[in-house]
């Protein structure tokens, strides 16, 4: 459903993506793992065109694009089919929770306000935030803000939702409430790409793991195989370090 081929991206002299191959099938939850600086976040940002790739092809929704030549119109159309959840939430601080959710529906998709409001309340219920609908972001905890951000990302029923380290800015307790919401989405068959350091989540909720390092995909496979029987030495090292001696 979403596929990226031969993706390259440098910032000045620093090559961050060095020929990445990546794909997600419909209904699949893909966890992207890897050490800091391996290019995981840049991969998501290139897919959503927040960064312009130096080279690369993309297939999305059966259309294929040269990622260096897409028009701003094409980018906008593709974004209408994508959801994105940031590490730092990035809620609109001038709007209460429910308006954060309706904004994309009303302003970008021209949905009538009443209908959008109903959808927003339904989405907030899904993430357990319906009783905080009138609160502004500054009045919510980090975990609550991230749940509202997830409601915003799923509101337009996108084909794929990308999560960029969604719990890295949260303490362990708040991390749990956000991961619970994400697991629920995964169980409902939502197509998700999750860049994360949460190995527990990756193991339980992901169908497939993509392990990146140095701007390339080092190993990928089914979650169970990846954790129990990693093929590459580099992957084994990474898992040993992150999961402790037992792995």
């Amino acid at each position, binding site marked *: 459903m979403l596929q990226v081929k031969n993706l390259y991206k440098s910032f000045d002299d620093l090559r961050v993506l060095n020929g990445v191959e990546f794909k997600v099938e419909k209904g699949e939850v893909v966890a992207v793992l890897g050490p800091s600086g391996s290019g995981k976040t840049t991969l998501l940002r290139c897919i959503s065109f927040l960064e312009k790739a130096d080279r690369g092809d993309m297939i999305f929704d059966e259309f294929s694009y040269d990622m260096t030549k897409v028009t701003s119109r094409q980018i*906008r159309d593709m974004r209408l089919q994508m959801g994105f959840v*940031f590490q730092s939430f990035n809620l609109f601080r001038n709007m209460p929770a429910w308006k954060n959710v309706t904004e994309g529906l009303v302003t970008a998709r021209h949905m009538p306000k009443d209908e959008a409001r109903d959808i927003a309340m339904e989405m907030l219920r899904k993430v357990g935030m319906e009783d905080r609908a009138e*609160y502004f*972001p500054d*009045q919510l*905890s980090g975990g609550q803000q991230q749940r509202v951000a997830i409601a915003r990302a799923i509101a337009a029923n996108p084909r794929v939702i990308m999560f960029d380290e969604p719990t890295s800015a949260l303490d362990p307790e708040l991390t749990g409430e956000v991961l619970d919401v994400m697991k629920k989405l995964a169980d409902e068959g939502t197509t998700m790409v999750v860049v994360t350091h949460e190995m527990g989540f990756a193991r339980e909720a992901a169908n497939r793991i993509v392990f990146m390092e140095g701007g390339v995909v080092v190993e990928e496979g089914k979650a169970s195989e990846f954790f129990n029987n990693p093929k590459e030495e580099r992957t084994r090292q990474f898992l040993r370090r992150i999961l402790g001696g037992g792995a």
Partner: protein
Amino acid sequence: MTERVAQILISSFTKILIPGIKVTIPLTILSFALSLVLALFLALFQTANVPVLKQISQIYVWIFRGTPLLVQLFIIFFGLPSLGIMLDAFPSAVIAFGMNLAAYNAEVIRASILAVPRGQTEAALLIGLSYPQLMARVVIPQAFPIAFPSLFNNLISLVKDTSLASSITVVELFTTAQQIAARTYEPFALYCEAAVIYLIFCTALTWIQGAVEKRLVFEHKETSGSRRAIVG
């Protein structure tokens, strides 16, 4: 203070206050409104990724911030007629003050736009908003409370700067004080009286600023007192 001076001060108070209310205040409000509209465009030009617009805006700020206000006032009122552009004193003053202050307000608004976290711009793009939509719906509403104290500061400066309009024949607060001072030979008393009236205007503005700033907070009013939301 002699009884004569006291008499003059009392009888001249309303004579100075009335042109203050009828001329100084409208001059201030119109000039400030003009400066805000210009400044918003100048600031948007600078933050948009269009090189030509950015340069136009930078040159504007460079010129209007780098030359004296009094000189700008004289160019518009005394200078432009030689190019065939004749303006009355009051509109000349509005244009000069408005264009001059726009340069300063543009910098205030630009800095405030840049102070809105960039992540929200990205979030807005990703839910499908266009650049003008995200500026209007997300960035400007948040830049406004940031800009407000500095903009108001410039407004208070402007109230006093309008006294320069006396030099191009606008009969405002200060001109009237000058006229009475010339007639009565009491410059010290009259100019002090004019200063007091400016001070009253500015004090009133300071109160308004305080009252408005309190309301420029994005929060759910019924819950904001207790801050329970943060804990719960």
